[in-house]
């Protein structure tokens, strides 16, 4: 028994160490966002100065605004196209279906830099100017496959006869879809959308090639600042963003834990 406890201590210690590795940079970001010194070497004193500053920093705020706009629109489009596609692919046979199935994996497995230059090249060939529009096209492209995957995994578990029953009872296909299939798919759709939004918000590589100087995103703004050093303002805004995301995840997790307990 004692030996067993001993063993589980080492196992938990390993898990703990892994989390220290994963969270150390985040702790650093949070600590330095409250630091009075701009140098990010030692903690000199507590301040909220950077939090006030960053909201008046036009460059950072407009980049963040662009990121949120692109994230929201791309997520919406990718979720609609991806959900419809996943359902359609599970229901119908059509020419090119197997090819489509393979092509959907390309954005997932291919190194991002390749998709980035491929899109840049085709934009240049088609004379599409690099802007928020070209950026949204690119983000939707790499988000669609993730939506398809999550919705598809949910589709497998759904009883088809439910929608058929609705049809038999006289519901039109559209009504049956909206009232029966969609609610059942909703958890898959939501996680696909959340995944898309997170991917879009953090994308560096594909955005790097597919956006213009006038439509820079938050990660690209940070990338430009890395050479000269990231200011505590970035730490501050990152802390705020993390707080929002963690809140969403906690709410989601709590509801899931409740479901598991039931």
């Amino acid at each position, binding site marked *: 028994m004692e030996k067993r406890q001993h063993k589980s201590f080492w196992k938990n210690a390993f898990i703990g160490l892994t989390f220290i*590795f994963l969270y150390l940079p985040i702790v650093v970001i949070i600590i330095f966002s409250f630091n009075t010194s701009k140098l990010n*070497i030692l903690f000199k004193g507590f301040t909220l100065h950077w939090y006030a500053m960053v909201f008046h920093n036009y460059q950072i705020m407009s980049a963040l605004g662009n990121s949120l706009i692109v994230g929201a629109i791309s997520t919406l489009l990718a979720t609609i196209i991806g959900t419809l*596609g996943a359902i359609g692919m599970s229901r119908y046979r059509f020419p090119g279906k197997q090819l489509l199935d393979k*092509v959907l994996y390309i954005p997932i497995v291919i*190194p*991002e830099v390749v998709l980035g*230059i491929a899109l840049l090249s085709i934009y240049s060939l088609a004379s599409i100017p690099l802007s928020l529009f070209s950026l949204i096209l690119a983000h939707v492209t790499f988000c669609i496959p993730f939506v398809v995957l999550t919705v598809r995994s949910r589709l497998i578990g759904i009883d088809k006869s439910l929608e058929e029953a609705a049809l038999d009872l006289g519901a039109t296909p559209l009504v049956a879809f909206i009232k029966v299939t969609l609610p059942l798919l909703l958890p898959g759709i939501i996680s696909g959308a959340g995944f898309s939004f997170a991917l879009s918000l953090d994308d560096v590589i594909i955005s790097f090639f597919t956006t213009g100087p006038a439509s820079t995103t938050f990660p690209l703004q940070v990338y430009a600042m890395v050479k000269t050093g990231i200011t505590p303002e970035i730490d501050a805004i990152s802390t705020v963003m993390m707080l929002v995301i963690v809140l969403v995840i906690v709410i989601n997790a709590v509801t899931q834990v409740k479901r598991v307990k039931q």
Partner: protein
Amino acid sequence: MMEIPKNDFSTKFKKHTTPTNQPAHNSISEKISKWIQIIPISLWMLLLVVIPLMYVLVMSFMSRNYYGGIVYKFTLNNYVQVFNWQNLKIYGQSIWIGLMSTIICLLIAYPFALFTAQKGPIAKMILITLVIVPSVSNSLVRLFSWITLLRRTGVINTILEKIGFIKQPLAMVYNTGGIVLGMSYLLLMFMIIPIFNSLDRIDHDLIEAAEDLGASKWKILQEIVIPLSMPGVFAGCIMVFIPSLGYFFVSDVMGGGTSIMMGNLIENQFQVSRNWPFGAAISVMLIVLTMILLVLFQRRGGKMDDLG
């Protein structure tokens, strides 16, 4: 109403016995709804994945003019350039950094996933959520956090010097080791999740049966757990190794320009040197490499869905 004919018993019976059969083509609205589902995704993937990649392939055989424009004249020069000694060294370096990062991720992820999979359902869910949480915050900011900690005038060197532990600051970033650290840090999650999933799927009865037959813990790990988790291990290795070849910003931030990787080489051709056909040729090589790895993965019984 167009739907009424579908409600006769013969079609209903057919539909229930063969649920994979496509619905009858007897209604226009059914056809429209089929096209609404299939056409947007097909068109999007065709226009923004298939055609752009085909174009990259075509471009890799084209020449360029003095100003960096593409001239549509067939040449193999780009591929000759791909295999010159200087560039081969860069691929070697990228593959080395990618392999090191993959091994480090595996060494951390496997025990972590194994120990996590032994916990109760709620603890499992919390731990796996905690693995994903850091990845939703900006990856460049997190990378730079390591610079803050590890650079010559960084937090750790400063503290170590203050307490007199070292005289000279340690070079922990702006070198190959720094790049490997950055890659492993950003990609660790993609190793943990597939391994955890494959371990979590193992039938517990199998392990109990082995225990009843008197197998030792080590024997069970060796003979049952590790073999059954191999698909997850392969999936994780692919999800770490392939992206690492293209993550040019990691070598940029963590390497400080000391090592150039394949991703940087491609980025350079498109942003600085303006030699798009050559950049396209390297990209084609990267696609070929990815495809070879994926074929090996599938031959080993790996499923593409595990790569999400």
